[in-house]
């Protein structure tokens, strides 16, 4: 087991920067997920940790050792690839034991470790099969088994669930979490799926354009995003962003979203937001789950407003409603029994205790 440290890590492909000097400390036994859109540098970062990409600048440490120039085989890591990368001509047993056989580990020890990993992953029955005889989920388990038998310092996962269908993905996500709870190995996991990131990670690292936007627990990122990018990336449907300006109203502050709608700013935030009274470049951010149907007993910081609904999307356990504020499409989540209908007006409430104010120029959440 070991911690992983990235110091000012840089990767350039010829003149194109892919990773622009990131710093990250991953604690021993921690499950860290790197998440971000395509091309954000997350896979490149993982591959630099694995030793599959040369490092342009900075350092990668596994344990206390700088491994920049160490070949992958000497880093004591195991990796699960997006396409599983199982050797098609080998049986499951041979695939799982390949690394140990190369290390000339004793045959009895290899058998013990493979059987143990197979038991953890529930693939004991498949050991004599070839990869082509396995389903996608089974292949994924074998790929994980190959990593587990090596008992490495660090597990690296490169979008391991991307090739599975939606149902299997959810199932395998739980499996991965269970395996981590059993083996407690430091894990770095790359995905573009924010739900995967939120559900699996002890800490999530959100990357964008080769830099780290924010590092935090799933709850921190959800409730306290540092930037507009993180606020928009985490959560589904995405957070609503509506251009606004601050104004003084009724002794306090209000965020004016349109000539008809202005939301009062919670008192606790007034001091923080007051310096931006004259700023003409602000965004009001509120998640769809914080825009709900009006209920009989309003809580403090809840502000009612009425809008014509453009579209409604019944999801079963909730209904998504879409409407316009200040020319921007806004989404809310209402009770399916609240009677939301496209083309009809509806009374909604915004839970302003969860609002965010964002400086549109810098993208920082204020």
């Amino acid at each position, binding site marked *: 087991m070991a911690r992983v440290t990235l110091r000012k890590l840089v990767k350039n492909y010829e003149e194109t920067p892919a990773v622009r000097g990131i710093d990250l400390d991953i604690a021993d036994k921690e499950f860290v997920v790197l998440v971000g859109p395509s091309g954000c540098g997350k896979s490149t970062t993982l591959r630099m940790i694995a030793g599959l990409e040369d490092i342009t600048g900075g350092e990668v440490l596994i344990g206390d050792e700088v491994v920049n120039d160490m070949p992958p085989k000497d880093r004591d890591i*195991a990796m699960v690839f997006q396409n599983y990368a199982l050797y098609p001509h080998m049986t499951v047993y041979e695939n799982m034991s390949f690394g140990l056989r190369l290390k000339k580990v004793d045959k009895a020890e290899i058998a013990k470790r493979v059987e143990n990993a197979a038991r953890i992953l529930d693939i004991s029955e498949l050991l004599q099969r070839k990869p082509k005889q396995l389903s996608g989920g089974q292949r994924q388990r074998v790929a994980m088994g190959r990593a587990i038998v090596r008992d490495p310092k660090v597990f690296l996962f490169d979008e391991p669930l991307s090739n599975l269908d939606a149902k299997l993905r959810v199932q395998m996500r739980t499996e991965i979490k269970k395996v981590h709870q059993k083996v407690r190995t430091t894990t770095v996991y790359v995905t573009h799926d924010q739900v995967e990131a939120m559900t699996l990670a002890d800490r999530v690292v959100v990357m964008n354009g080769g830099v780290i936007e924010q590092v935090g627990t799933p709850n921190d990122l959800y409730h306290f995003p540092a930037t507009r990018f993180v606020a928009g990336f985490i959560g589904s449907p995405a957070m609503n962003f509506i251009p606004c300006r601050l104004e003084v109203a009724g002794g306090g502050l209000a965020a004016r979203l349109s000539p008809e709608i202005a939301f009062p700013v919670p008192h606790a935030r007034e001091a923080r937001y007051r310096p931006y009274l004259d700023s003409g470049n602000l965004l009001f951010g509120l998640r769809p789950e914080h825009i709900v149907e009006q209920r009989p007993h309003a809580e403090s910081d809840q502000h009612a407003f009425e809008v014509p609904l453009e579209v409604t999307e019944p999801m079963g356990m909730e209904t998504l409603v879409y409407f316009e504020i200040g020319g921007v499409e806004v989404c809310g989540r209402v009770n399916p029994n609240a009677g939301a209908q496209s083309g009809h007006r509806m009374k909604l409430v915004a839970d302003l205790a969860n609002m965010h104010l964002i400086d549109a120029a810098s993208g920082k959440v204020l």
Partner: protein
Amino acid sequence: MALPLILIIVLLVGYPALFSIHMATLNKSMERFVGFENFTFLFSRETFWMVVRQSVVFAVTAVVFKALIGFCVAHFVHNIPAKGQRKWRGMLLVPWVIPPAMSTLAWLWLFDPSYSAFNWILEGVGIAPVNWLGDPNWARFAVILVNVWFGAPFFMIMYLAALKSVPEQLYEAAAIDGANWWQKLWYVTLPMMRNIIAITVLFSLIVTFANFDIVRVLTAGGPVDQTHVFATWAFKLGIESSDLPLGAAVSLFMFPILAIAAIFILRDINQRGNEA
């Protein structure tokens, strides 16, 4: 749907094959049925067994070297950055593109007893000239060399295609598993290429075994029939000596030998199936 194909096969393969079997059972003047007489006659001749030996040595040696050289060159080309790779691929294919009868004429000049460029080089470094096409062993070497020169690019292009189809992630997984260069080749590259290697070897074995033009142009089977292969000897007996039935009998001997090789190789491929 399949009728045109069946017609083409019957006309271009079935009829000539059956006709040559029929012809091999006739006497020299093609007037009388003699059964297996032509075959028993061939078995009794020492030249026949020499041709069998030479055909096998020629085909097996040439295919082995073509396969080895093709494999090495394919690796070399595969590792060239994509930008310059096309040029190399094109240049290395040239020997295979030139009609062999024509390129063998150039080789004939290189081996010429009076003007041999090879001998000129050898003399330059103080080595006595070699009678390339007059000495039986050197003549055998020469026909194999030219065949390898002509056929290696085919192996190269087939192996290159096979190499490109091996997913890069397998090598990365092997690198993480601790495989060195040799172990990656042995445990990843070769098993992934096995079917292509087998098919290419089989195809080349058939073509090399039935080779005619290189031996015909370079040595015409000489010196003293020492470099004859089945096709050139069948030509000599059938066309030059006007004994078509005997020539047909010689050419028919290629079939069982190639059929056995094909059965073994195809069975192996079939057993492995498509593992990818």
